[in-house]
């Protein structure tokens, strides 16, 4: 394992952690709204959130490259805000990963919120709990298994993504070259031994993390 591999591992963990956190912050209100709203817009919003599932990742990556580029609408927006252009930056990877992994976080949360139903909320209301108080003291503890599933899926999907980061990242060492790209590089360069070590390590790490989280979830449901 060389320095390039280590830097790719560090970068991937940083990206996946940050993206999972952002997904929970952004995805929770969307999922809550989708679970509760009587609005007719619900169908449209739900569909838009699920859309990244349909396009092949490299194709999605290509269109995001166009949209975030100097001639694209998002590119115009970020430039006029003084943020510069997003492609080939770590922030660009974060933004695309959040969009790409959004359905994996919103859907389990939405299902959980729907399953909780109205009654616990009504009970909380009779005890004069405010909206925020109800959400954090009643909904969040009840929805814990949903949050754990959403985090697992969001994290795992970000670690495993390849096509989108390849398009948006530009394969810059230490900045956008994540593990999946590094493994692909080894394979393409016919350095199979290095590819095997890195891929094996990634699978082992993923197994440990997922196993720990699933055990945690199982215990939660048991109590």
């Amino acid at each position, binding site marked *: 394992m060389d320095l390039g591999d280590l830097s790719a591992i560090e970068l991937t963990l940083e990206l996946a952690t940050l993206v999972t956190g952002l997904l929970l912050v952004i995805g929770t209100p969307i999922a809550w709204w989708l679970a509760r709203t009587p609005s007719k817009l619900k169908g449209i919003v739900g569909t838009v959130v699920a859309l990244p599932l349909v396009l092949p990742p490299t194709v999605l990556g290509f269109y995001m490259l166009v949209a975030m580029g100097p001639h694209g609408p998002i590119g115009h927006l970020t430039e006029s805000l003084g943020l510069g252009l997003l492609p*080939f930056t770590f922030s660009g990877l974060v933004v695309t990963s959040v969009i790409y992994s959004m359905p994996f976080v919103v859907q389990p949360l939405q299902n959980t919120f729907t399953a909780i139903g109205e009654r616990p909320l009504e009970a909380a209301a009779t005890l004069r709990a405010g909206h925020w108080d109800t959400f954090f003291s009643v909904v969040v503890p009840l929805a814990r298994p949903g949050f754990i599933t959403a985090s697992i899926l969001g994290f795992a999907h970000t670690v495993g993504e390849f096509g989108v980061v390849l398009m948006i990242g*530009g*394969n810059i060492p230490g900045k956008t070259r994540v593990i999946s790209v590094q493994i692909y590089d080894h*394979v*393409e360069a016919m350095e199979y031994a290095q590819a095997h070590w890195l891929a094996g390590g990634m699978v082992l790490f993923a197994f440990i993390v997922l196993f720990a989280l699933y055990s945690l979830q199982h215990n939660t449901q048991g109590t």
Partner: protein
Amino acid sequence: MIRCVLLIFAVFSFNASAIAETVQVAVAANFAGPMEAIASAFEKNTGHKAAVSTGATGMFYAQIRNAAPFEVLLSADDTTPAKLETEGLAVPGTRLTYAIGKLVLWSSKPGFVDKEGKVLKKGKFAHLALANPKTAPYGAAAVEVLNHLGLFKTLEPKFVQGENIAQTQQFVATGNAELGFVALSQVQKDGKLTSGSAWQIPGSLYSPIRQDAVILTKGKDNPAASALLAFLKSDKAKAIIKSYGYSL
């Protein structure tokens, strides 16, 4: 006389149907366009069919090692066919150079790249795109050029790397990288630049990007495989290859 003609006709048509075979060809992505034209000319001229799959050479190598059904490989380099031959996966003595790739420095903005490539020395750009030098021959050639110009160290922080030459071209075409090293075959049609501005890099600055073809072990007994390699050497095929910006 009539019987004789009929007999000849019968023998001929019997032969034609018996001989017409299909050959499974793996083609490097940068050669996808010319190969399409070559495949249809090949079919018209020989009656054989070429079933073409395009992709990255390194990926084809992994697939061929794992018993992919390809019978001919048109590689993006000359090392992969040689490697396959030493590993006993290609038929010895069938390798040939079917095209030599030309490298250009290209920008989608007109007038951005001058005819001598001085834009590289000025360095007034944020991103310079090139194909991954570790895996793509055009990327390795780009690094060679920058080393020759003594600009590698200065420009390295501005590199963005495409996994292959097609992706590199997309980085530049979408304007996300102001300029980049791509294959001439990607940006010219019928001898003219399709858009933007380019510097065709002198051959003295990089070693020739030889693209070799080889018959794979699976195609050893397929007459269409050897016919395709012979056809690649024909004037008709050469004219097509040149019109796409390769030299020979």
